[in-house]
């Protein structure tokens, strides 16, 4: 049984199909990769999982429970958190407040185990290595750091699974290196991760299982080693290079 599973998810925008019968799953205690060329439908799938989009067909299961008809906030309360590829930070708030408010929101729906939002926020800032930016405006920090703020915000809800949409873009090599270690650390501490990332090296390094999306369909799934040698995957990426 997977922690998170999409079964036959399809999504159409007008006439154009962005996703066609997609099966994707992510296990507990693991980092699962989801890769694919630009426009493959990765972000669209995230939107279907978190409820920001209603898929035209298929179901989303969390712990084998069908959550397809639940509104986004209920899915979040069920333990699904995410970051956004196109940043969705609270621009009126400082870095610290962005993270703290997520804890305060959590305290509203999780009354049984409340957390001290301030303390937790300090811990997360430290963990993500952005404590030095705490009092800055989110509008004035570099994108790479802003992505970490979004991740910190998501972590404040103590999610069971964290969906990351290209978290490493905007970070340099050194930062990406550290970031990989951080992901493994989170995973060890019980947060499952579904990672969408264009930095294939990072994906290969941290993921135990990878699924490949192309033109809205899953074309391959397997361990990093299997994916690296998969002909369909190579074609998809090479095809992209030739077009570019």
């Amino acid at each position, binding site marked *: 049984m997977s922690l998170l599973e999409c079964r036959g998810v399809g999504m159409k925008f007008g006439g154009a199909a962005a996703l066609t019968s997609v099966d994707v799953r992510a296990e507990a205690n693991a980092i699962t990769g989801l890769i694919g060329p630009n426009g493959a439908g990765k972000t669209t799938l995230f939107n279907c999982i*978190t*409820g*920001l*989009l209603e898929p035209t067909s298929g179901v989303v299961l969390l712990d084998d429970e069908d959550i397809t008809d639940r*509104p*986004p*906030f209920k*899915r*979040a*309360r069920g333990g*699904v*958190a*995410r970051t*956004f590829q*196109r*940043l*969705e*930070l*609270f*621009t*009126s*708030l400082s870095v610290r*407040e*962005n993270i*703290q*408010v*997520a804890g*305060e*929101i*959590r*305290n*509203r*729906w999780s009354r049984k185990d409340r957390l001290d*939002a301030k303390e937790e926020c300090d811990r997360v800032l430290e963990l993500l290595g952005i404590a030095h930016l705490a009092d800055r*405006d989110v*509008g*004035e920090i570099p994108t790479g750091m802003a992505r970490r703020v979004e991740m910190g*915000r*998501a972590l*404040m*809800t103590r999610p069971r699974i964290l969906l990351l949409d290209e978290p490493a873009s905007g970070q340099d090599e050194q930062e990406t290196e550290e970031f990989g270690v951080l992901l493994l650390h989170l995973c060890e501490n019980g947060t499952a991760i579904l990672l969408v990332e264009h930095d294939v090296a990072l994906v290969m390094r941290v993921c135990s299982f990878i699924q490949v999306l192309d033109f809205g369909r899953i074309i391959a799934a397997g361990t990093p080693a299997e994916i690296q040698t998969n002909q369909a995957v190579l074609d998809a990426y090479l095809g992209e290079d030739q077009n570019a």
Partner: protein
Amino acid sequence: MQDFLAYTVLGLCLGSVYAIAATGLVVTYSTSGVFNFAHGAVATFSALIFWQLRFDWGVPAPIAIFLTIFVFAPLIGVILETVVIRGLRGTSEVTRLVTPIAVLLGVNGAATWIWFRGGSRNIVPKKFFGGSKVDILGQAVFYHQLIGVGIAVVVAIALYVLLFRTRMGVTMRATVDDRTLLMLNGGRPDRMSLFSWAIGASLAGLAGVLLSPQQGALQIFALTLLIFDAYPAAIAGRLRSVPLTYAGAMVLGLSKLYFDWASDAGQKWLALRNMRNAIPALLLFAALLLLPQDRLRGTIVSRTRERFHVPTMKQAVAWGGVLIAVVFMLQTLMSGSAVISLANAMALALLAISLVLLTGYAGEINLAIFTFAGIALIAAWQFDVGPGGLATKESLSVPAILLSICVCAIVGGLIALPALRLRGLYLGLATFAFGIVVYQLVFLQTAPLKADIFGWKFTINFYTTGSLTMPRPDWFGIDFNDQRNFLMLMTVFFAVIGIGLIALRRSAYGRMVVAMKDSPAACATLGLNVTRLKLSVFMLSSGISGLGGLMWACQQRTLPNNNGFDGFQSLTLFMIAVVGGIGYVSGALLAGIFLALLSVVMPNIWGKLGSDYPGLHWLFVSVFGNFTKFVGPALIGIGLGKNPSGIAHQIMEGFRPYRRTPVAAAVWAAGLIGLWFLAWRGVIGNWTFALIVVASAVIVPYVIKAIFADRFEDDELAINGEHLDQIGLGREFRASDRAMLDSALGITSAAAEAEVHHVPA
């Protein structure tokens, strides 16, 4: 049965005109993403132009029609699009709603100025072909009405051909979906938007000309409201679909006429006399309920950053104290009538302050503030004063105030419910419709409502006598019938609510509210029930507006039922509040002052100048006076696109030097207090005092900057308004920029100089 058919025919005729009006809205919205609140005003203006040409100057009908519909109306549309609407791209939903409201007030103001400047006037547009009728299904129908049906059909066909059979139409439909994508593909969204505004204005003009004879003598605001009636049809069409809009328009027209039929043309059900006028607004609510859930909005990447500085609690309390002290000192210098003006301003500020929470913090919209004031008034009056009420008191009691706050909060929650899951625009429209319903069914209701709930009999008095007189409170043995005392009471209320709002903003709740404004989508993925939070904010803010409304009513003492409850005053207040800078509590204060200045004080000043210099009467009264009264507020609102953070923000920026140099600020304040003392003792005149205060406010910051230059060094980096991290964006990067960045980063000048040569200048 015969009757029923006849009413059906008339209903379809009316529906046709609504269809024309509503389609205009849909066309503009679907290409520019701006809901044209000014649609009704454009229609009214066009109807007046047509009247001028056709009936005043006797131009033959076909020429007059051509000039109105194909020349003047589209011209208005084109002007609006280029001057105003284009600047709204990438601004917040509130700005995109406020600006057309300003245009509405401006166009109506201009029409009043041109055609009604001398007061009331008998402008009677006539029907086409006079009173000629034809018999359809036993109902005599005017040719005029048939023309309306014919035009509706022609418009429908023409739009279908345009949108689906021409390249232009395809591009028009694409514009709103993704203008960047369209531009990348060689489309020209600006031209499309321009074209659609011309069409929209033309359709508004048609509807205006067709509807204007309905009224008898033309009244500007009434005709504008008549066009508002068509809005539900556009909503039924989801602001996108022309066929659905037509269907909605027919439902509208038929509902009105079937109501006539059922009520024997208003002979039956006297208590529901005004129901006919409320039907469109009620249908708007119905249409909102039918709309599908909106996708949760993400961050608006706005062109101009609308960011507000939040004061600390200490600052908030200090400013509250300063406000109370300043108002107290000022009123000692003021004459009785000036105190009344200031008190009016404070009362309006108390009304506007509820918008700080709702609009400033939460980014939501309420276009019926005065309606809430009226509801609070009725509730408190019923409780304290009204015959059949619970108590008959000479003064406003605390329980009555609490009761009306609760009533407002509950009513607010109920009306917001259908719109909460939708975009902010819809909440705005719902509140506006609510304002109209309450105006028609409650404020204009003179019969008392007798109720009998399980044997508990009671009577609720609405505006039984056409006006209500509100007693003022009587607390701590202070006589608040004294205008000065009441001014101070309102000031204290304002300060306390203001401090409370800032405390709220700094709390966890406040952070959630602001987060919700910035990105509802992100909030939802953190587990926040956005709809519920919005509901709580709306209820809280409605409650505050109830309190503000009561104070405003007490200030006015006697309020006739037509005083500001028809919706336009709420629109004006909302607009001015946003312009004042609604993200700040001080923005609400500014709004109150502006509104009082524009509507009362300035016209008085121009009037006085006019009578002092009779030779220049035309200039002062006819030009300046009318300008301030009719067009001034609108112009202020239209400028908003350029400065969405509002005036309060700019003023604060201007006063920054004081914050950096507390000692200088203290000296300045002490100087002013000294001056006030002199003025109070009569040593210097009040005008002298006022002049010195204003002049020093402008000059002293510069002096401080000159003396304490070292404290403002980092400001120099923001040369010409460019911030450090944005230097060189959007223009060529100059060597001087490099030097500036180097010095800011502390790179030694020698190294910097060596580098400069490598930079192409």
